[in-house]
């Protein structure tokens, strides 16, 4: 995946020194990556966002002075071109979906091997997003027409991809089943994540309107 061009600038926000250490090691082991910065808490992360943008930002949610969600949201507007990942032990939808709604494009499993972590980062940078069957299921439920009448709907292809994901099929298998390339499937997922973010924003506006705040 190494492109030979400029190395990926990677930033991590993580309070656990052990994981931070192994992540930094993984980045340094990859030739095509460069550690841009590392922060231990929300305050440090916010300070970083004032500076030059990173290509990839990996954020832990349980930070000592606040939630990583704030960092994701701030990074999404400060570094619009940065690929944001939430680092998580279980990739459970309770952590991942709010992160995506805040602007993250994927997640990084903390127990992954160093090479797997590097692969996941590259995949994200090249436009692919990871997804679990359970997250796919949650998103399908979220986009049911009755639940969100005034929001962007999933296209039939996106819907089909999500349904296959819930049944445990891999990107490669889905690509084959749908007659598209693996890349296309991965961009489906990225688009779905963007729709999720937009829909959550629309929902927030709708909520605010209905409460007379706007």
């Amino acid at each position: 995946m190494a492109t030979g061009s400029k190395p990926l600038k990677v930033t991590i926000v993580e309070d656990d020194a052990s994981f931070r250490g192994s992540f930094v090691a993984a980045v340094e082991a990859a030739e095509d990556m460069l550690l841009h910065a590392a922060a231990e808490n929300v305050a440090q992360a916010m300070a970083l966002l004032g500076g030059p943008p990173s290509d990839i930002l990996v954020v832990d949610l349980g930070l000592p002075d606040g939630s990583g969600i704030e960092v994701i949201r701030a990074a999404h507007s400060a570094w619009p071109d940065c690929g944001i990942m939430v680092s998580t032990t279980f990739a459970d939808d309770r952590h991942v979906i709010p992160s995506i709604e805040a602007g993250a494009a994927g997640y990084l499993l903390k127990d992954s091997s160093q090479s797997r972590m590097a692969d996941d980062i590259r995949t994200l940078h090249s436009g692919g997003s990871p997804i679990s069957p359970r997250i796919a299921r949650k998103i399908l439920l979220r986009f049911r027409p009755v639940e969100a009448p005034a929001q962007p709907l999933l296209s039939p292809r996106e819907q089909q991809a999500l349904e296959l994901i819930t049944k445990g099929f891999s990107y490669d298998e889905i690509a084959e089943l749908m007659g598209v390339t693996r890349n296309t499937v991965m961009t489906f997922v990225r688009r779905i994540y963007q729709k999720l973010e937009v829909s959550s924003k629309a929902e927030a506006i709708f909520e605010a309107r209905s409460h007379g705040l706007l």
Partner: protein
Amino acid sequence: MAFYKLLARYLAALGIIIAGAVVLHLVAQPRGLHITSAELAVESTVGYQSPPATLIRRAMPDDWTAVALPNAAIPQLALSQHADAEAPDTQVTWYRAVLPQPVSPADKGYLYIPRWKSDGTLAVYVNGELQYQSHANLQWNGSNRPLRIGFDVTEGAPPINAIVIRLQHLRGIGGALSSLWVGDFDQVGPAYMVRNLFQAELSYLTSAAFLASGVFSLLVWFRRRQERLYLLFFLMSAATFIRGLHNHLGLERLPFSDAWFGWLTVNSTMWMVAISHLFLITVLHVRASWITAVVGGATLVLGLATLPLFSAALDPTLTAPFAYAAAFVVCNLVGISSIRAAWRAQSMEGLVLAVWVLLTAYLGINDLMLQNNLISIEGYFILPFVQIALVFAFFHLVLAHYLGAIDAVENSNTLLAERLTAREAALLASHERLREIEQRELLLQERQRLTEDMHDGLGSSLIGALRMVERGRLDETELKQILQGCIDDLKLTIDSMEPVETDLLLLLGTLRFRLEPRLESTGIKLNWNVRDVPPVFWLDHRYALHILRVLQEAFTNIIKHADATEATVSTGVVAGDIVISVSDNGKGFDTAAPRAGRGLANQARRASAIRARLTVESGSEGTTLTLLLPIRQLAEDGVAG
């Protein structure tokens, strides 16, 4: 006490009405020329003759005696009747009054006669010329109505100086005349109206109003047959109305015979007593006794004996005094027995009514005496007024009964609503309790499930790792494998806590998602051959975790021991079962070996816990694990762990 307050109010109202009547009566006293003496002459006749148009001295009786007015003969009580009903023994009673000074008819135009009695005919002569004659039945001829006769005023009419009144009536009974008044309209008009009101109109109006409410009561009874009180109230109103007829009817000829009219009006007295009795025993909840029998018997006998169907039946005019006497006795019986019953029942309303019934009997004596000319005939009959009060007493009782019924309905509605609210609250509380219990039960089950799972899986794996480190056999790869297995265990445990909503493929997909990295790292290719399966409605947390663990074990075996290059997961439906199979192309293993046996036993235990069937086939071509899950499970089957 409410009753005394009410009684006081009734008595006060009664007092005001009586006072008003007395005042009205006093205000409306007649004025003008008051004639209180006359000359009387009597002729015996047979049958009824028309009065002469003009009085001729020669045709008049000779022996006149001076009498004071009012004048009345004491009737002879006789139960005998003239054999010839067409030509009974009659007599003509003449009254001749000469005015102290002549009056001009244009000036004083009216003759007012407060009361006249004649079971026959009346004719009034002015200056010897017939001025007025009755046009009614012979016996029921409206003699209870006062008379106000306007003198004919003609041009050059001479002043009036003498008034002669001719009464022809049955010999021995009837025949009486009050004092006379001559005056202008202002002098005698109001007196006439007031007396007419009290003697006739009032009785008519009240009994008609009473009858109207009686009809309403009857309509109520039609819908509520078990409430005898409403029927009795109607009967009472009807009897009172009939009884009242003889107070105001009779100015005109009746459309039915004297005999029937007499039968009705005389017997109705007895009926009223009998109905009062039934009404009282109903109100007081007293059972019918010999008194009822006596009352009923007397009513029946009197009614039949006086029935004018047979020529032998007695003329009601003749029998009326006897009928009234019988009514008096029965009324006493009813009154006294009812007073006792009311006293026992502690019913003040009943007591008042009973006392009033008894009082009626004694006040009736006045009327009987008046009827028989034993007291001044210018007095009033009292019973019509007593009956009005009686009507109100009945009315009050029925109204109380009616309102009581409405109150009871309202109360029962309120009570029902209260009971319903209480029930609802109780139901809500029990529902809440049930939910709490359910919640507790669920928590307990979940705790039990996780504890057991940790004990079997995570716990024993970690202890194994600990032992290894303790013994110094620190094989880094093996330790890493154990810890990776622990993390996988933990991930599956967490996954099993999420709802899968009957979706078995989602469960398998999740399993793949968790195990894929390890398979990939070992270079085993996974074929994902799943087909859609029907929803599994019994799939809950416990079932899900058991399925995950059975399959996880299968994968662990493939990764650790099978030396396989490919693994395949497939699903399908066979004869009511969902089939999940995991196979590999590895070297296989001896299913009887102790190490493999323990893992298999564990899988079999979990499979049986969810009523699934597990088969493992292993050979040199590889191993295939098959899990058969029934699509439907009976809810009551339950799950052991």
